[in-house]
């Protein structure tokens, strides 16, 4: 059966609401399911479990923290990635810090879901961010699923996790469909990457929608006899460094494609780990958004600012040629 990425998120929410009475959803327009992620859930679970909020992101994010302290497992849907900037304090300085600051007296099991992260056609500068590296940097568990099965499995794990977890569902991945037997859908542990395609010449690290670009590039290059391994860490933080090390030990060449800005982004971390720990045959490369990137509205400009398949192929050639 075909499972779409969006439906996978919807199913994960429905399943967790059904099995665990402490789970509840809150967010803007989730009753009407404007983003489709919560379609049918209000009708199924009612207003106590699917809570439409006013436009008060800061208060409802802390509200979720309070509800978590009182024993519930809130899941917040954010309509726009930059709303996470608006609640940065509430996630990073409140939810994340409660456990240590209270000497372990409490847990804050809140999940923050952003369906449609990254560039969305036409949404322009203030709605096109992909701030997963920011949350990884501060140490909030951060997940960017690439496939419908992973979207299901990682969202379930995020909800069951006892710490705050941010789940980015890239808009570039929302259209992806998997051919899956629904009975095989299962939780996917946080912090464990996967080999999306096995290969021997170069390890390409990619997250979310960019996994599909990496796979396409690998297809393209296989006709040239170049064998690409695509490593999808799935979780940005904690990062599966062992899985990555294993792949790179085989290929000894590394390219990272990353939809965050270059400076101190996810790709920077992978390259830093490589510099510290890996033996490479050529300097690694990163394909990222440019520094300070603000996505311009005009589509061709928006695309020009995003990391793309062409740059990836160029980078792969570069690491194959050097040394």
């Amino acid at each position, binding site marked *: 059966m075909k499972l779409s990425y969006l439906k996978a998120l919807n199913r994960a929410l429905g399943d967790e609401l059904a099995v665990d009475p402490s789970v509840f959803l809150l967010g803007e327009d989730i009753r009407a399911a404007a983003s489709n992620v919560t379609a049918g859930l209000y009708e199924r679970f009612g207003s106590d479990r699917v809570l439409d909020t*006013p*436009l008060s992101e800061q208060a409802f994010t802390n509200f979720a923290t309070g509800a978590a302290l009182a024993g519930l497992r809130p899941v917040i849907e954010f309509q726009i990635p930059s709303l996470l900037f*608006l609640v940065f304090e509430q996630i990073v300085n409140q939810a994340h810090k409660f456990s240590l600051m209270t000497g372990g007296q409490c847990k804050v099991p809140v999940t923050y879901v952003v369906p449609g992260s990254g560039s969305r056609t036409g949404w322009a*500068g203030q709605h096109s961010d992909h701030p997963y590296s920011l949350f990884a940097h501060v140490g909030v568990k951060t997940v960017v699923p690439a496939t419908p099965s992973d979207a299901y499995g990682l969202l379930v794990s995020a909800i069951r996790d006892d710490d705050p977890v941010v789940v980015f569902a890239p808009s570039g991945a929302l259209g992806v469909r998997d051919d899956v037997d629904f009975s095989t859908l299962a939780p996917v542990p946080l912090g464990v990457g996967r080999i999306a395609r096995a290969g021997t010449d170069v390890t390409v690290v990619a997250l979310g929608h960019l996994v599909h670009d990496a796979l396409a590039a690998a297809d393209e290059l296989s006709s040239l006899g170049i064998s690409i391994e695509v490593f999808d860490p799935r979780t940005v933080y904690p990062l599966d460094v062992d899985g990555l090390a294993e792949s790179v030990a085989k290929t000894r060449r590394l390219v990272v494609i990353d939809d965050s800005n270059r400076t101190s982004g996810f790709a920077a971390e992978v390259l830093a780990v490589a510099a510290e720990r890996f033996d490479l045959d050529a300097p690694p490369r990163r394909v990222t958004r440019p520094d300070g990137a603000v996505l311009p509205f*005009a589509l061709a400009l928006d695309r020009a600012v995003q990391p793309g398949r062409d740059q990836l192929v160029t980078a792969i050639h570069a690491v194959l040629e050097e040394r």
Partner: protein
Amino acid sequence: MTSQDLYRTVRLIRRFEERAIDFVRSGEIDGGIHPYIGQEAIAAGVCAALGPSDVITSTHRGHGHVLARGVNPARLFAELMGRESGLNKGRGGSMHAADFSLGILGANAIVGAAGSIATGAAWAARRQGRDTVAATFFGDGAMNEGMLLEAFNLAALWQVPVIFVCENNGYATTMPVESAVAGSVTARAQAFGIPGFTIDGQDPEKVLAATKSAVGRARSGKGPTFLECTTYRFDAHHTFEHRARLTYRTTEEVSAGRSRDPVEIQGARLTAVDRADVDAEVEALLDAAAGIALGSAHPDPAAALAYLYASPEVMR
């Protein structure tokens, strides 16, 4: 400002939006728009009360505001189409239309953000000896954003010449205002010591009159005023809704809402002949504007990061 001028503005906005929706359908505008249809009287009435040195900030639903403030419709169409001749050189799109030469400090895609920006701009202008008044538009949904409420406080404390224009169209996307705003909209402004009034946002003349007295207060150093303009959004929250099946308003409610049409209300104040003249004039203007926009160049992707920094040498 004659009745005919006000009619021209509401009619211009209406027809601009209808054409913009067509351009969304035909794919000339990427990503869609938040149509202003039904709310035209507010933009028209407020902007008619402002002078040339005044400034405005706008919202995600901002075409009406910038048109009423006098932008060239060709440059607004071009912006929506991502062209180099657009107001923002195609870099902003529907939610960021700005024209600093007209005091339009930009639409803002973050609900509730612009109120404090407008307050700062008005304060700064006054400190520099300018006679500027700022008008800042926002919806009923924004009334629940803390940052906007904070702005009310700053404006009231420092007697900033800013007019807070709340366009209460009954919904924030699908959320009815009664389920979202506890207490009352005007009471929130009044609690900060800001005079707050509820006015009929479907009638351009009433909006103009209320704004005029707010501008008077502001110019004479008496500080901010809050205007709740009751209105109704005739179309979708955003054109994506034309494809999605969101059910949150009954058809009866929508018909009732549409029955008080600002274009009709103001049009009825003109003779049939005058009205037809204005309509033709608007159509000609928009025909030309659309043509210019459609014919204008796309920006060069090599300049995708132009204007990112004031000093371009930053980038490596």
